């Protein structure tokens, strides 16, 4: 196990830069996810760590070893980085059996034969594929191939495991299951993992930390909670779900702790308190991010919840989702989405309450 | 590979033999000259045995008599013969480029008169052979000069399907081919190409002038280049007549319903020549081979195949049918100097 450090890593194609100035430190045993829309540079970043692509700027080290340094012209090719990787397509070699596929990394490293057998079977047991060793690889289902790909990536106990959208080819049910299994395995083995996905739910469910990328740059690095609840920017905020963004003006600002401020804001037809990462001057305009699930329905009368934001509006659309009900509310001309308990009684005119801890101000 | 002494000796024999050749070319032999000539030849044979090997490039692909040549020279003189066969222009080009590149691999060339002449005039790849003892026995039509030694000739006639052509209808003259009854019924080797077709065109033009050929053009001749297949097509009755067919097809096609017709004017022919290559690695064996080819045994072998022997030696045991046809009058052959012009004319008359 080892840590991975990316320092100002860039990748240019001609004048176009696919990745620029990425700084990232993945700690030992940590599960870090690169998340972003297609074309954001996440896969390129992963491939540069893998050694499948060469960074045109910056430095990458794995463990204590610098594997690529653009300035010094140093580049360690993929096969000498001792990594494990799971490809989006699994890249199971169709001409080999399951056993041969998993044994491959050991064979090319000339591991003694008995060792190979023991370690392959052990790896297959880890992914619960022990009984399939002699199957021809293509005769497996997608989930099974996925497990084989993981076993193959783990079999020689790599310093680092790279995963390039490994779940994207599975259906929703299997995706959740495989994700959970893999996370459990990762925690058990304490493998440093770098994971690429464009699926934010997957990212949140699996990761210790998430790196949100857009247009080749890192927007934010943080734990799933941080990223979800306290995004740095509107872009990060909107990448996870569809939050309500309420334009507001700062009335007052108070410090709560390190990188934690409390703002009193006023919007059109409402006023309240929210949190922010940075201090704001009076009369500055901000966007207050409110996640639909953090909106509660309150009695019109009870307006005494100090420090919260209270809004009134008219329900114009509502759809039932089993556990919750998704409601669109017209608040003074702008639309808000709220996820309410499914059984909550709904009248046409509603009053909404937002806990100040869940209202997050973003620079507009 | 050869010592300086050998080289010297070879040159010497060659020079002496050349002198001898001049002597042989003169009309009268005196007895001592004859004796000396024999002595010289004896030395050449000894040198040839010493060389023990000779290489022939032949433009007659698949000539069965080449096997006789190999066997005989090996048996008689202990000289192994390597024969490389390819089509006329291929052999010519190989020899030319080998000479140009200084790769002297071949001793003797065997090629048609036209190509050999072109090689002499354009490629300059031959040395005088210095006259051979048997050169004096060559027929009048086949005189050797100081480079070319005629070795055999191909004679051409008409091939008829005996089921389709009644004996009375058989063309008796080349001119009979212009008879309207044969319109669209004659398969022919291509007149516009070197080979039998070109020879026939040349000789007919030479003898009868352009008119006859223009008449023939109205006969709607079917030109086809694959000679072996053409002969079979006549035998199967696709066409009643095929021109020109080599006499060598007579022994080959024996048993099939075809007949070789020799028009009364005579048969066109094309001679094959042997020639000694410049810087031949085995000059003595080469000349021994040339001499052997115009000797009685090889001439007999050629005759057996339906080729025309070039010497006046009496032959025995040749298939009577072939022998009879072989005695047909000769109509003429091509002049290499005019060949190109005539081929152009053929393309004009048979566009």
């Amino acid at each position, binding site marked *: 196990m080892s840590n991975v450090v990316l320092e100002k890593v860039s*990748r240019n*194609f001609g*004048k*176009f830069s*696919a990745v620029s100035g990425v700084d990232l430190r993945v700690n030992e045993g940590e599960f870090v996810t690169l998340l972003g829309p*297609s*074309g954001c540079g996440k*896969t390129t970043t992963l491939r540069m760590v893998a*050694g*499948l692509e060469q960074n045109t700027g910056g430095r990458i080290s794995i463990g204590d070893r610098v594997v690529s340094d653009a300035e010094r012209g140093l580049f360690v*090719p*993929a*096969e000498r980085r*001792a990594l494990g*990787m799971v*490809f989006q*397509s*699994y*890249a*199971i*070699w*169709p*001409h080999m059996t399951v056993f041969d596929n998993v044994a491959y*990394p050991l064979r*090319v490293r000339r591991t003694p034969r008995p060792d190979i057998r023991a370690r392959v079977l052990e790896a297959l047991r880890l992914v619960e594929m022990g009984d399939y060793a002699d199957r021809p690889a*293509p005769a497996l*289902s*997608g*989930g*099974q191939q996925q497990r084989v790909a993981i076993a193959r990536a783990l079999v020689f106990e790599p310093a680092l495991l*790279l995963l390039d959208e490994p779940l994207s*080819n*599975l259906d929703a*049910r*299997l995706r959740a299951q495989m994700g959970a299994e893999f996370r459990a395995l990762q925690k058990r083995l304490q493998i440093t993992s770098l994971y690429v996905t464009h699926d934010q739910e997957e990212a949140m469910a699996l990761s210790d930390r998430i790196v949100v990328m857009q247009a080749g740059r890192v927007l934010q690095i943080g734990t799933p909670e941080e990223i979800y609840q306290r995004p740095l920017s509107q872009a990060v905020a909107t990448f996870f779900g569809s939050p309500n963004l309420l334009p507001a003006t700062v009335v007052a600002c108070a410090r709560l702790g390190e990188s934690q401020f409390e703002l009193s804001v006023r919007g059109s037809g409402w006023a309240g308190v929210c949190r922010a990462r940075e201090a704001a001057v009076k009369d500055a305009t901000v966007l207050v991010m409110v996640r639909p699930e953090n909106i509660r329905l309150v009695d019109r009368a009870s307006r005494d919840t100090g420090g919260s934001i209270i809004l009134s509006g008219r329900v114009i659309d509502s759809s039932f989702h089993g556990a919750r009900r998704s409601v669109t509310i017209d608040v003074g001309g702008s639309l808000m989405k709220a996820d309410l308990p499914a059984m909550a009684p709904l009248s046409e005119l509603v009053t909404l309450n937002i806990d100040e801890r869940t209202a997050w101000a973003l620079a507009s | 590979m050869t010592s300086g002494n050998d080289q010297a000796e070879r040159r010497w024999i060659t020079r002496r033999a050349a002198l001898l050749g001049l002597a042989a070319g003169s009309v009268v032999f005196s007895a001592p000259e004859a004796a000396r000539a024999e002595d010289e030849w004896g030395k050449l044979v000894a040198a040839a045995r010493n060389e023990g090997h000779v290489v022939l490039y032949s433009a007659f*692909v698949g000539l069965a008599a080449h096997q006789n040549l190999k066997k005989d020279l090996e048996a008689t003189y202990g000289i192994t013969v*390597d024969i*490389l*066969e*390819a*089509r*006329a222009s291929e052999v010519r*080009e190989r020899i*030319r*480029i*080998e000479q*140009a*590149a200084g*790769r002297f691999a071949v001793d003797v060339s065997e090629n048609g008169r036209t190509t050999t002449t072109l090689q002499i005039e354009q490629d300059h790849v031959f040395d005088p052979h210095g006259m051979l003892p048997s050169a004096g026995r060559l027929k009048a039509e086949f005189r050797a000069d100081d480079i070319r030694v005629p070795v055999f000739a191909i004679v051409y006639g008409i091939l008829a399907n005996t089921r389709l052509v009644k004996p009375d209808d058989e063309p008796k003259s080349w001119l009979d081919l212009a008879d309207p009854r044969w319109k669209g019924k004659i398969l022919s080797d291509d007149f516009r*190409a*070197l*080979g039998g077709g070109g020879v026939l065109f040349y000789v007919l033009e030479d003898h009868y002038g352009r008119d006859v050929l223009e008449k023939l053009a109205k006969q709607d001749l079917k*030109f086809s280049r*694959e000679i072996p*297949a053409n002969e*079979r097509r006549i035998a*199967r009755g*696709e066409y009643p007549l095929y021109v020109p067919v080599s006499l060598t097809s007579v022994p080959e096609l024996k048993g*099939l319903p075809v007949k070789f017709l020799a028009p009364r004017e005579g048969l066109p022919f094309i001679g094959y020549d042997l020639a000694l290559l410049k810087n031949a690695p085995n000059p003595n064996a080469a000349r021994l081979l040339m001499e052997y080819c115009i000797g009685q045994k090889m001439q007999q072998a050629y005759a057996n195949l339906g080729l025309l022997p070039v010497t006046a030696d009496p032959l025995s045991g040749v298939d009577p049918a072939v022998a009879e046809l072989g005695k047909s009058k000769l109509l003429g052959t091509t002049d290499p100097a005019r060949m*190109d012009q005539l081929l152009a004319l053929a393309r004009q008359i048979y566009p």
Partner: protein
Amino acid sequence: MERSWQEKAECANPARSFASAKPTGAEKFCARPSLIELAENLYPQQVNMAISADERVEDPGRVPFAAGLRARLRVLEGTAASRTAGVALLVVILAFLSIYPLSMLLYGSLHSTPPGMAGVFNLDGYQAVLTRQNLVMLLNTVGISLAKTFPSLVIAVLLAWILARTDTPFRGALEVLVTLPFFIPPILTAMAWGMLGNPQVGLLNQLYQWATGSSNSPINVYSYGGVIWHMMQYSIPFMFLLIVDAFRAMDPSLEEAARMCGASRWRTFRTVTLLLILPALSSAAILSFIRGIENFESPLFFGSPAGIRVITTDIYDSINQRSPPQYQYATAVSFVIMALLLLIVLLQWKLLRGRNFTTVSGKGYSPTVMKLGKWRWATFAFCVLFFAVTVVLPVGQLLIGSFFKFFGFYQWDMLTLEHYRAVFGSSEFWRGFGNTMLLGLAGASLTMVLGGVVAYISVRTKWRGRMLIDVMAWLPWMMPGIVLGVGFLWGFALLPHAIPIYGTIWALLLAYISLGTPLSVQVMSSAYSQLSYDIEECSRVHGASWLQTMRHIMIALAWPSFAVGWVLVFFGIMRELSASVLLYSVGSEVLSVVLLKLWTNGNAEQVSVIGLMMIVLVVLFRWVQLKVIKARISTL
């Protein structure tokens, strides 16, 4: 971009919802690539990242995705120095095999006399090419080649689809059978068809006359139709061999996806299957078209008697039938043809480059076959009919003919084994056979290795110089065989004497490698372009060096194509005459020269015997090959 694609795919792909509705089949369905990947495979530039507008500016002709790919690949291969050295070595080898003989020919076309003779440089040769007559001839040649390529392509695709993707009975045997015509020496089938289809006594016409009572002869092989038909017998199995693996290797779920989207079978075939194998298909068609331009036997045999003239017969005439040989003209014509063909090939490259049709992904595939129901007997009958017409008829003729004293004369008293005795008793035959086997084995293996390397570099890498390598490997293909043979002769003869090639068996070997490389490059290119990059990269990431990856992954996966290419090259060598006859030397006689001798001597019967032996050999090779391929496929 991705999202929109995905959304489209999601709604367009019922397989997904179907999968979740049916838990037992769920994994299976999802294991197969969805339309997303189909989209990715077809339009990777749209899905992959790393696209730049600047790249487009840099090189307007190239699809932008190539830039990303180039970068992806650049780092995959060893160190820069060893790569440069490797490429340089390859360039030198190819230059010697193709540029060197071609430059000899170029000299010949620009010089009044061939190399080694005094003369002057002039453009007379090219001037002589520019005549109206030649234009007509060129159109004739192109027309014939087009006329044979398209129907052949249709039939080849049909056969490939039937034999690779349907449940037609006896597919294994049929696959061997339908490829047989390619391996029969053309001169023999020409003769057989001459007997079957001549207007006077042709068997087919007699059958027709017997059946209808008319005296018409509807079939005349000595015509355009005959020339085209004779060529087709070779181009159908040729194209079949080149494309069948593309059909076999294709992931059927790509087609299933289309079917699920409501496309009919025919529509699926047209819009998905055909498009997926378009690279293989178009290269095969172009190869076949080029072969058609350069075909010599068919027009010589069936065209000349009908007054049909094509470029190859004209070139042959100008060398072999003129006095003196017109080398300057022949080489000039050849270069004009070469330029035209090169243009076509470059156009095709331009059209296909960057369109990456990887259909063998690392996800594995199960080559399921389409259940045709009772229609499978119709497809079976189609194959059998094809086999009957192209093989049974002519080969039957050969077989029967070989037992009679004279080919085509069936009388009891002419029944004989003499031809077999003559062939098997001939030391010349055995020497030629031995040399040919040796040259064939060594030549085909080396050619395939060279072609494999060239194809790898050209298809899988973006190395500088790969276009050059590719073009160099291709050039010999564009040069008519007769002329190329002369180029080798000149080239090898004029080498310094210290290089012992001329007059040895090496000259033949090198010429064969040069002649076979374009084909091997083609075969291996389509094999490689079927393999996804993940498969290769995955090996590198897991510790395998480039060489190990080549050995264990690339070659292991591409070897069925390798085997097909090997057989094609092997029999190409067996048949090659133009260069052989100019380069063979005493002791290194090859079978084709032996055949030439027999044929010129009117010995069609012995030629048939040898032809039949070649067919037996082909059946043997193909049978073994398919057995092994089948064994591999059954494990999939």
